[in-house]
Each structure stands twice: as C-alpha cells, then as structure tokens.
C-alpha cells in the first residue's frame, strides 16, 4: 500500500475513534486548490510537448465515455435498488464525473511502481468532470417538469458546472502550464511539483476524517451502499480500461482511465446537483461517493485496476 494511503487511514482512525483532531476548513480548501492547480500545471507542461492532433480523438472518446457512464448506472439504481428517479440521477451524476484526488493517488501509485503513463492525462480529468454531471441531471429531470414544479434552469446550471472551481483550476492550470512550457514553469516547481506528494498526504489525512464522518450515512441502507459503492466502480473501471486499450494507451494509461471511470466526484457533482436536483437525498450520494467508493478506490481499487490493465493489455 502506498504510504500516502496511510495518511488516509490515520484520518479515518482519528474520526472513528472520536479524536478531537480537525483540520481547519481553510486548509481543506487550500489543499484542494493546490492539488487542482498542480495537476493542471503538470498536465499543461506535458501537453506542450505533444501534438494536439494525436490527443484529440482520444479526448473525444473520453468525453463520450463520461456521458455514457450515467446511462449505465441509472437503470441499475432504478431497477435493482428501486431508488426514486431523483436519487438515481443524482448518484449517476456523481459516478459519471470523476474524483481528482483519486486520480492524484493513482499517479502516486504508478510513480511508485515506476509505471509510465500518457503524461497529458490531466486533460482527460478536466474533460471528464462535466459530461457525467449533465447527463445525470438530465436523467433525474426527464419528464418531471410537471411533477415537482420547477424545471431545471440550464443556464445557471451550465454556468455553475463549467465555471465551478475544479474545472476553472484544472483547465486554468493546464493552460498556464501549456503557455509557460517546461522552462517557464521551472520557478514554480518548488511549490507545485516538489511538494505534491506531501500535500496529497496531508489532504488524504483530511479526507480520512471526512470520509469516516460519512459512515453514519450508511446506517439505513448499508448493504446496498457497500455493494453499489464497490461493484459499480469495478465495473466502470473495466469499461475505462477497455476503452484505454482501444485508444492504444499504455498499461499505466489504461489503469488511470479505469480509475477515473471508477471514481465518483465529490466536489463538482454535489455542488451542481444540490441545486439542480433538490429532492435528491445528498446523504445517499455523498455516503456512496465519499464513504465507500473513495476509500475503496485508493486502498484496493487502484491496485486491482492496475492488475486488470496488465491482464488486458
């Protein structure tokens, strides 16, 4: 297990054991801003080295995958879990989008195993943030205008999603890294690259505290939540890995695309869906994304997906 995950476990332990350890909210925000920017910058610098022509078709396929995943999750949630349309769409939106921190743990994992991957991957992270959310909300709202009164206000919503802080920082970082190029970015390496793993460790400590705090959300439907929260990611990961193979990605790239597909958003998706799908229960979606899938992915998932990618390569 990557040492970075030990910090997550420490945080989770502290919360479960009711320690008074708390990270200030400002630190949580700061670390997440840092991680988004740093990932974007790193990706942008790499994109500067590649021709966009080669990346473009992959990018389109990745977007399509993001839009398709909720279409798989939604009927499963409706039929097997018998969830209301709003809840099913809401959860589908979370799993259609991606978790940037899960991605960061993934690149730490690959770096430790010395497995190379397509270095422009942060671009895919940015591209995967939005489509799944939009499709999930569409599913939640289909044929509902009459029922609950308010239709979705797509204007404000698309504004919120496309200009949400995670997209702005990730895409902004990519563009700055791209323009600055490897030399221009050099003076920022001290902060944004050398400290990356340490900051990730600190953030995972906080995530451990937060994720363990979500365990209460599991109490009413824990069997469904544990099942869906681990099996859905594995299933999505296989889809991502297979797509990676089709797109000619390396084993590292296949692993990362699987991990992204299998990860669930807990920054952009909750923000957008809370307003767009008011009648959905956030305890359910957050409990799943943060309380089950995030811990599963960073502790077991990433190694599992890597093994699968090696098999299928």
């Amino acid at each position, binding site marked *: 297990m990557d040492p970075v995950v030990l910090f997550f476990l420490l945080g989770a332990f502290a919360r479960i054991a009711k320690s008074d350890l*708390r990270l200030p*909210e400002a630190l*949580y*925000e700061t670390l997440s801003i840092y991680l988004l920017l740093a990932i974007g910058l790193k990706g942008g610098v790499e994109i500067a080295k590649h021709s966009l022509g080669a990346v473009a078709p992959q990018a389109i396929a990745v977007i399509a995958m993001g839009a398709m995943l909720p279409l798989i999750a939604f009927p499963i949630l409706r039929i097997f879990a018998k969830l209301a349309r709003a809840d099913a769409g809401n959860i589908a939106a979370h799993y259609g989008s991606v978790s940037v921190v899960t991605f960061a743990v993934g690149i730490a994992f690959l770096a430790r195993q010395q497995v190379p991957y397509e270095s422009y991957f942060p671009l895919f992270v940015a591209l995967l943030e939005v489509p799944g959310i939009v499709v999930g909300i569409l599913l939640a709202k289909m044929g509902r205008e009459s029922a609950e009164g308010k239709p979705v206000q797509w204007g404000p919503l698309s504004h919120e999603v496309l200009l949400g802080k995670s997209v702005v920082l990730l895409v902004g970082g990519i563009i700055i890294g791209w323009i600055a190029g490897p030399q221009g970015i050099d003076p920022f390496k001290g902060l944004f690259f050398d400290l990356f793993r340490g900051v990730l460790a600190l953030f995972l400590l906080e995530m451990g*505290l*937060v994720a363990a*705090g979500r365990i*209460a959300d599991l109490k009413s439907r824990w069997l469904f939540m544990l099942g869906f929260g681990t099996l859905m990611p594995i299933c999505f990961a296989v889809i991502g890995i297979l797509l990676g193979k089709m797109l000619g990605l390396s084993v590292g790239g296949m692993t990362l695309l699987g991990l992204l597909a299998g990860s669930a958003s*807990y*920054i952009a998706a*909750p*923000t957008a869906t*809370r*307003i767009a799908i*008011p*009648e959905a229960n*956030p305890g359910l979606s*957050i409990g799943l994304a943060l309380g089950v899938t995030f811990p599963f992915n960073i502790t077991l998932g990433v190694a599992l997906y890597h093994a699968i990618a090696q098999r299928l390569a």
Partner: protein
Amino acid sequence: MQTHPKKLLVIIAEAALEKLLVKEARHLGAHGYTVAEVHGGGATGARDADWEGNRSIRMEVICDEAVAQSIAEHVLNSYCKNYSVSIFLADVEVLRPGKF
C-alpha cells in the same frame, strides 16, 4: 433618541443556498443582509462544516414586517422541504428607519 420597530429575519441554511437566498431576499424587498458562517445540528443530523457540502450559513435581514413575512414564506415554500433550513423572526428597533 428615537427608535423604530422593524423585524429581524434569521435564516439558517446550507451554504449552497446563500447565493439564491441573497438574490431572492433583495428581490422581495430586503435592503441588505448579513451572513455568518456557522455549524450546527438539527433533525437531519450534525452539519459540521468539515467539508464543502457540510457548511451552513446564518443570514440576517432587518426589514419591515411585510418584507420579512414574504421572504420567510418564500423560503419556507421553496427550500424547507428539500434542504436543511431553520427560520425565525424577532422584533428589533433601529435608528434609521429608511435604511432597512
């Protein structure tokens, strides 16, 4: 010193609603508002402010009784069903009645 009676409307809500609440309160006649970041707990469990989805605000609006009533009613109808929201009203006195 002469004082003038007004209503103080206090709305405790999920932070995600802040932008909407401010816009709608202004629209319904509030001249201003004050917001503090808080945490708390109620029927829907503890809201610890330990991450973004878990933050709460406490919004205060000083206004005429009629405005307070219409904002309160609007919030009750629009948000109380699906969001963690608490509302209360109190009598206060202000010095510059035109301001509020």
